[in-house]
């Protein structure tokens, strides 16, 4: 799961997967702007077949948060 998320974030931000860790966030990844954030959400939703609410979209601002949110979503279904 973590690897898949890293792959997606790396592709969306156009950086190397090894540059992404749990603490990665818009603070420390220059390419993580608001437009790319939306692209990231769409890519994650497509990959994991889930859908985030508007509130969740705003909260997903670190790799660790993304992972725990997706786990939660997948457990619900």
């Amino acid at each position, binding site marked *: 799961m973590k690897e898949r998320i890293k*792959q*997606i974030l*790396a*592709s*969306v931000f*156009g950086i190397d997967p090894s540059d992404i860790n749990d603490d990665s966030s818009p603070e420390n990844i220059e390419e993580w702007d608001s*437009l790319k954030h*939306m*692209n990231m959400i*769409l*890519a994650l939703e*497509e*990959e994991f077949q889930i859908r985030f609410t*508007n509130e969740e979209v705003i909260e997903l601002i670190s790799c660790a948060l993304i992972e725990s949110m997706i786990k939660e979503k997948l457990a619900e279904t």
Partner: protein
Amino acid sequence: MKELKYFEILKKNKEIQGVLSGDKYNVAVISNMIVVQVKEILEYSIRLLNINAFVEIGNFDNIVQESLRFCKNNLCVIFWELANVIEGLSFKAELFDDDGKNQIIEKVKMEIDMMFMNLRDTPLVLINKFSTLMFNSQNVRTNTYDKICDEINRYIETKKNPNTVIVDIDRVLARISIDRSIDFRNYYSSKSIYTVEFYKEYVMFINPVIASVNGKGKKVLVFDCDNTLWSGIIGEDGANGIDMSSNTARGSVFNEIQHIALSLNKKGVLLGICSKNNEDDVDEVLKTHPDMKIRNENLTVKKVNWDDKTINLSAVSTELNIGIDSMVFVDDSAYELGFVVRCLPEITTLQVPMDIYRYPNILRETASLFYKTSESAEDSIKVRLYQEQSNRYTCKDSFECVEDYLKSLSLKMKIFVNDITIVPRMAQLTQKTNQFNLTTQRYTETDIRNFIKDENSIIFALEVEDKFGNYGITGLAIVKLRDGRQNAEIDSFLVSCRIIGRNIEFAFFDYIYRYLLNIGVKVICGIYKKTIKNKQVSDFYDKLCFSHIENKDNTEQIYSLNVSAYTPMNVEYIEVLNERKN
């Protein structure tokens, strides 16, 4: 493209950017909506055509000015969303009186005029037809919103420049459904409405237009014959046994296929056939079969022989002086297509589906790739031919390629010896196999049973599978033992045309040879009886290094092999599942 996920497209798009060279092909997407995700998806779809594309998204909701800014681009794509030509038009329209409605229409018309003026010299302009489907699909009656939409669309139709192609996005919406095309989640916050799935479908929809303008459109449609242009196998079933008649369910499908091919031909698409068959058989069908719609005069190329299809298709490319990437090849065999793609990766292939009713629709999908910008005088576009990088693909050394391909197939062969459970299939094989059949002896089930009972005959059958699936029992050999089992005569040796070309016949012979060696046979006698269908095996025993002993009336050739002198072919990529140990 459609099977790729969005993040995979992003990744591959970045990778392919490093590989492409040549002139930049500048594309602008101009919209009154937020359409950022289309950037890489569109870019990647064009780059797959070997065009060094760069896509830029214009500033939000500024179509007239942005069309001026990007007028020197190679391509402008206009994503103009009716719902946002004024804020909230989709729900405000119903409250307008005629004046209000006309004011809106006049405003948009004026902007359209200015946009077309700005883009009049751009090599290619794609503009989406305005659509109300996203907001109005529930309505039985047309409403004011629909009327505004219709009027603007009519206006675009009359005002568009010759370089402009109108894209009917309702068809894209219909193909994947409205629900999957739109997502209102970010509509109110950021005027973004289309889904990634929509963009993927959309870029594939417009891709043939871009290919065509850049000289990369498909030009030739080449068909295999058996079970591709007609149902059945001409070499086995004969002209009366094949079916493409509009009077049968199965035949109707092939009848439709031929009509689709002919209508493409009428629009300038070249047609060809490439088939492993006896040329005379196919010629007879083309000349005389009453249900055949495609005739010789429709065919620009005809390759009917026993050579590899890659050799034939490469020859077509050379003869017509068109790139392999301009060709579409249709065949029913996953094996043949797999081989062609491996050696000629730039070709587009289409496999006849198992559910035969799906075939016409699949061909129609492929037919869209033959889009021609200059189909009618009105549409004739000043084509700026893209600098064709001379990257015409040359076939890998054919032998090396065949070997590579066969190695990749995981071929497995299972042998049955004197197996009573498969008598009906064995009899059928002797009755139906015409082409790879050394003696064409026909036997009934009783005959086969008698061979099994008889101590002095051995009947071998062969089952084949590879990564594409199991082909069933598709080979047979009957060996008669003589002179106290010292001598063996190969009475029958045949392989179904479904599995030829994989060197299975040699592995099969090796097996039989080892079996006979094991029971003490010293000399094997082989016979080739010439028929009008079996020319392709006339040199089979020569290939196995048998000595030619006798020529009987030019119709029957007798061969002999000293068992101790034979070196097995040992076809390394065919696994024999029940190999006999020596």
